């Protein structure tokens, strides 16, 4: 590969970039230098300013100060069309697709193939099919409505869209957050393909092992400033990067777990019998004991989230769910909560948060009736409520430590802590955690792991879903491996390693896991 670190011809240079938001100085003099044909990684804690920086590059924000040089000459990148004109394409962190439009239309949105305003649809469809083929996802059909795609496929479409611009610089803001191991490998293949053609890739991720695998050089941001520029990825130890990011030494390790068989005598918190939702999952049976953390491992689309949601009553499914000896009637989250369950859902922003509301109100949302007096009147004792929220946010070390701030202004990791905090206000018997660390930085992760373990030690049962196999293996006591909606293996975490899990998880050789993501829903349609 034509990559030489000595090649000093910088394609893109940013100098002294400042960006001020009302009340926040998101960027405070950031420098960045990117070379042609390299994968330049941008690292930093949640809220460090990574997304803001790349939004300046993509023309979505205008910087307050500083300059951007492309090929040595200063350029103006706003509005987004200008950045595109300069050959800069972006895959945003928040999926930026239009659900109501087809795959093709999303990919060519803003730069449609058209004659006198009329779309040349066949031609665009062909181009789309080629792009998707190149990304290894020929099975996504160009005319499919994007809203019906799984998150992983949406991510692929976003990528295809960036490629459609034939850009010189492609920015990827946490592209792997919605992808599983296999998909990430696929993504890396595409990235290598791009860099070999001289395209520069700016890559953002909180998964440090990915940086090691794909990255050439690393720039680290902290609190809106550059703390390290152009470190060579292969040569810098992870611990050093983490120290640069967080300003302290975080052990990227999991809390110790109680020994094998520690839970044997303890009561069953949850028992699931033959849980079935046709077309999604079938015959799921397992149990969780008090103090136990059970992990669900599987590929994206294997049905883990749906199993969790069915247990919680958010989806109706056949079978039986028993919580603490009592059968849970399906179909009502209200009942599930009353019986002692709690769910930290997969998509924080859409499924858990009231973005405009203060942190405090987000924390107390599920336990409001605790602060009423008298209860039947529903009269809120707001002082007690606030005190409780404050206590929890301190206990969870939510930063900034002001429960009155709208939760929108917090970084992802801190938002996630508030979501967990919601279930700590009241005694829970079972916590269902779906991708609890998605988009959360290393430092915050370690804290979350410790918190979950502590909750378990206090006697709560935990069901954990994560697409990061090491996380499941590191945190859970016992692991259930899910494939195509069925439990295919169950073992204590100590008895498994990453390779073994990946083998179990894979669908029979030759078949792409991605193709499964789309099919069950189609089948479901024809069954009914």
């Amino acid at each position: 590969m034509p990559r030489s670190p000595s090649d000093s011809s910088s394609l893109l240079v940013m100098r002294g970039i400042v960006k001020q938001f009302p009340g926040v100085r998101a960027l405070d003099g950031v420098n960045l230098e990117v070379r042609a044909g390299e994968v330049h990684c941008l690292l930093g804690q949640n809220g460090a300013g990574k997304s803001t920086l790349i939004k300046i590059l993509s023309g979505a924000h205008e910087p307050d100060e500083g300059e951007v040089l492309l090929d040595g000459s200063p350029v103006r990148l706003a509005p987004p069309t200008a950045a595109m004109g300069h050959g800069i394409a972006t895959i945003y962190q928040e999926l930026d697709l239009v659900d109501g439009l087809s795959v093709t239309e999303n990919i060519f949105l803003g730069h449609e193939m058209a004659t006198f305003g009329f779309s040349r649809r066949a031609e665009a469809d062909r181009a789309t099919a080629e792009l998707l083929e190149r990304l290894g996802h020929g099975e996504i059909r160009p005319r499919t409505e994007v809203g019906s795609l799984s998150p992983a496929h949406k991510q692929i479409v976003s990528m295809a869209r960036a490629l459609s611009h034939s850009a010189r610089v492609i920015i990827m803001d946490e592209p792997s957050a919605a992808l599983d191991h296999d998909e990430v490998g696929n993504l890396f293949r595409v990235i290598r393909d791009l860099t070999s053609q001289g395209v520069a890739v700016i890559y953002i991720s909180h998964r440090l092992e990915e940086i090691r695998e794909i990255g050439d050089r690393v720039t680290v941001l902290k609190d809106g400033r550059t703390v390290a520029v152009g470190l060579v990825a292969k040569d810098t130890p992870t611990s050093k990067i983490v120290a640069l990011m967080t300003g302290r030494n975080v052990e990227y390790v999991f809390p110790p777990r109680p020994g094998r068989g520690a839970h044997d005598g303890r009561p069953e918190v949850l028992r699931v019998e033959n849980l079935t939702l046709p077309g999604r999952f079938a015959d799921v049976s397992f149990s969780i004991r008090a103090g136990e953390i059970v992990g669900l491992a599987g590929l994206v689309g294997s049905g883990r989230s749906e199993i969790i949601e069915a247990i919680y009553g958010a989806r109706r499914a056949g079978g039986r769910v028993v919580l603490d000896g009592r059968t849970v009637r399906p179909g009502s989250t209200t009942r599930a909560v009353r019986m002692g369950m709690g769910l930290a859902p997969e998509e924080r922003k859409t499924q858990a948060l009231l973005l405009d509301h203060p942190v405090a109100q987000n924390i107390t949302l599920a336990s409001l009736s605790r602060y009423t007096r008298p209860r039947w009147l529903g009269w809120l004792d707001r002082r007690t409520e606030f005190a409780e929220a404050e206590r929890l946010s301190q206990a969870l070390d939510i930063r900034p430590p002001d429960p009155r701030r709208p939760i929108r202004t917090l970084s992802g990791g801190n938002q996630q802590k508030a979501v967990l905090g919601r279930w700590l206000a009241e005694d829970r018997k079972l916590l269902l955690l779906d991708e609890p660390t998605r988009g959360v930085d290393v430092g915050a992760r370690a804290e979350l792991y410790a918190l979950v373990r502590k909750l378990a030690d206090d006697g709560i049962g935990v069901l954990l879903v994560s697409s990061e196999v090491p996380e499941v293996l590191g945190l859970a006591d016992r692991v259930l491996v899910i494939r195509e909606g069925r439990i295919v293996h169950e073992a204590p975490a100590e008895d498994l390693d990453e390779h073994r899990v990946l083998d179990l998880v894979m669908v029979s050789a030759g078949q792409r896991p991605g193709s499964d993501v789309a099919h069950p829903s189609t089948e479901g349609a024809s069954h009914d």
Partner: protein
Amino acid sequence: MTEVDQAAPTGPRLKAAGPGGRFGRLGEVRHLGLVAALTLLAIVGLVTRPENFATSSNLVSILALASTIGVITVGMTFVIIGGGIDLSVGALMALASVWATTLATQSYGPVVMIVCAVLVGTGAGLLNGILIAYGRMVPFIATLAMMVAGRGLAQRMSNQRTQLVQQDNSLIVSLSTTRVLGLPLLVYVFALVVLFGWLVLNRTTFGRRTYAVGGNPEAARLAGIDVRKHTLLLYALSGLCCGIAAVLIMARTTTGSSTHGDLYELDAIAAVIIGGTLLSGGRGTIIGSILGLLIFTVITNLFILNGLNTADQLIAKGAIIVAAVLLQRRSLKTHT
């Protein structure tokens, strides 16, 4: 994720961040704009009609005019914050007023009439709620159907005639004619409803849940809130307000009629939105809605005092709405 913000789908805002920020302050600042607009209108009143505008009897008249629709606006605020909309309010008020003034009902005396109006309003509101929460109909269509059918039923019950409140039941009329401390009783009813609405919205779990249900129904559901039941209750509450408003309009006009409350739905929705509540739900205040409503009422009063003709009055009203909103925007900007 961009909020699908129906209210302002075009703003080139980023993720609706920005001024939406601080909670308490936002409230205050929003109201500041409305108060400024009201003050401006008052100044216009004082300048153009110095001898009429600021008289206590005129102010009482403004409040009395605002009472009926004001009660409805309180219910509408709940519904809109909860992510819905209620087009049936005017029709439900008419229906309740007709039902309560049929000869049959009137024969039981004023208390039964009041109970009847309130029950009819609440019942029809419940039906709205059932269609929306359990029949999963779009609120706009469900309440539109209710609006149409409600007026039809009212016409049918009243035989398309205006029904007088009979002499025996003049207790109801006394709500409008009896004054305490210079204010007709119906203004007190209005004030009580506003106070009650404010307390429920700001001080009870029901109110808190209303914001959650409107702001992010999925999150509310996953937090264990029974979103459907809550939605049902919101429409019932709006219906209840229509029932109370029916009593007030009976008191004020001494009649029940299928023509009462024509286009109240538009006025109430406009007041709520001018008051800073998002049409997409999850935000808003009772105080804002009431200020919005008062702006409309004062505008009307100024027109009456100045004897503008219909045409000019409409033109001016349109212009004032635009001006008030832009003024409010301005005061928001300078404060963030």
